[in-house]
């Protein structure tokens, strides 16, 4: 067969979202690839320049439709750093619970999609079934399943409701058992191992140079986590491990994410059990009429990698002069052509899935 260009997207079952990976194939082998994104661009950064902080806050939930609250919390933290506000400890603790639950939910979505790309359709149903429990917890805590709009500048919207703690602790125990089941159907299945081991190898030096972060970089063997390196929300007081892989292949990305889910259940338990008493919102806190004229760059560990926001205040209005959203998956998707060469067409969904794309966040 002669070489030809093949569209893996934008309307294609393997792309979870609207994006396109153009691959030049020789038979089944990939010679070259080009990422095409931007189908979902909404100009969020421009919208932010025209809105006051509070009215932009609910839009952060729409930045990523899988890990919504991570972005809202990140935006709130950025604004807090800009204003020089420290939220009460209880609020920070509640945010940790929220973020870690969000991480589990996000990784569950990823796991389901990843496995269903390899034809393992049972796994997607199991993973999404268990995600339902976490969405129920969100419903209980925040009042919404997906778009929570829960963190506020200076704290969170409401205190944890009664029975939430007990319910969440039980669910975390349950989740640990389920993760064992996922391992049984994925890790212990030779077919799964055959499909993932040695596929889409991203060496550490390359990963660092490309700017990959989060599970993708950790799979390449770098012990790096913004929660550890640049602690926020009191993550430095909590006890957790940063899982790393060895080879940087699809298998390592899978194991790293699975282990992260385990760590997250442990983090939720710690945060709930050690939750300090106090306010969930700074008493008498009032948004100032003007934002201070300086710039702040706040990073946070999104489930997909290093998410960050760069906010500039102009000292005159209540609207950000500039808001830059650094999306981890944006980098990961554009980096795919750098390491996909030589793979097969069958590996494309596996490599794509390893980046855990969430298009709303990539295109912003």
């Amino acid at each position, binding site marked *: 067969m002669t070489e030809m260009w093949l569209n893996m997207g934008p309307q294609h079952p393997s792309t979870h979202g609207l994006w396109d990976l153009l691959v030049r194939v020789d038979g089944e082998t990939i010679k070259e690839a080009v990422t095409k994104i931007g189908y979902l*661009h909404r100009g969020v950064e421009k919208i932010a320049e025209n809105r006051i902080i509070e009215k932009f806050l609910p839009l952060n939930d729409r930045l990523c439709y899988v890990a919504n609250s991570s972005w809202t919390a990140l935006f709130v933290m950025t604004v807090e750093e800009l204003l020089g506000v420290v939220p009460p400890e209880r609020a920070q603790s509640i945010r940790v619970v929220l973020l870690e639950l969000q991480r589990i939910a996000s990784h569950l979505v990823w796991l389901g999609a990843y496995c269903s790309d390899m034809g393992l359709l049972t796994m997607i149903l199991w993973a999404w079934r268990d995600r339902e429990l976490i969405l129920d917890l969100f419903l209980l805590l925040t009042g919404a399943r997906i778009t929570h709009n829960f963190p506020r500048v200076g704290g969170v919207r409401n205190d944890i409701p009664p029975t939430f703690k007990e319910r969440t602790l039980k669910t975390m125990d349950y989740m640990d058992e389920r993760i064992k089941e996922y391992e049984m159907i994925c890790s212990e299945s030779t077919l799964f191992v055959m499909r993932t081991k040695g596929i889409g190898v991203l060496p550490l030096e390359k990963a660092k*140079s490309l700017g*990959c972060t989060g599970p993708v970089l950790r799979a390449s063997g770098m012990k790096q986590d913004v929660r550890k390196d640049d602690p*926020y929300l009191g993550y430095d007081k909590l006890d957790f491990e940063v899982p790393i892989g060895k080879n940087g292949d699809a298998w390592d990305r899978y194991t790293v994410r699975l282990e992260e889910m385990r760590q997250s259940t442990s983090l939720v338990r710690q945060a709930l059990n050690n939750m300090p008493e106090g306010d969930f919102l700074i008493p008498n806190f009032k948004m100032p009429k003007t934002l201070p004229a300086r*710039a702040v760059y706040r990073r946070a560990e999104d489930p997909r990698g290093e998410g960050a926001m760069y906010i500039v205040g102009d000292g005159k209005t209540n609207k950000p002069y*500039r808001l830059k959203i650094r999306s981890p998956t944006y*980098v990961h998707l554009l980096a795919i052509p750098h390491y996909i060469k030589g793979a097969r067409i069958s590996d494309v969904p596996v490599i794509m899935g390893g980046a855990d794309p969430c298009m709303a966040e990539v*295109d912003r």
Partner: protein
Amino acid sequence: MRTTAANKGETSAERGVGVAVASGGERRGFEERVVLRLRKLNETVIDASVQNPHRVIANVKPEGIVDVCRLLMSSGFDHLSCVTCVDYDTELEMVYLIWSYKEKCLMELRARISGTEPKISSLTSIWTGAEFHEREAYDMFGVHFEGCPNLTRVLLPDDWAVFPLRKSFKVESIHDKKKRLDGEKAKAVKTQAETPAPPPPGAEKSAGEKGDKDPPRDVIVQKEGS
């Protein structure tokens, strides 16, 4: 010890308030050393200072950005976290945010370039991943990165001629639009009450739609048009 004290002093002076960043326990003066090394590059670095623990900020001249970044790379700043741009009408400010995995320190480089002919050297020779951020900055601000491979539109359509995140690209937010429309409506009602003459057809229609049944419809229709 000196470093810590200096940091504290600067922090309290500049920020005035405690920041939600946990301050590292022992600092080895890494930030200070980096600042000193930067300051030695007199001709390219305008000023450099330790903002607060783990944060260094430096203003550089755009011509020397590659040299500065090479220096930073050699002193341990190995992760180019973000490249972005801020539009100050006449000038654009390029912002490079570089993180050091080993020393856990963030470097913020700022370089002012001309707003009319934005041009700066690309960092792709140091970090391959710089290409992605630079393409986005080109896409949104029209900054031309010299030496960046494949400097094309990434998020926006190829045939666009505008750079939407420039301040010259005006967008009316829906809140402003609503205020404006409300004002116009009130004006129309006022003129209608004052003058016995029939109001202009548009205003009448708007007022008619603005009955009890479907309140925000007119606002929405015009909003969608924009």
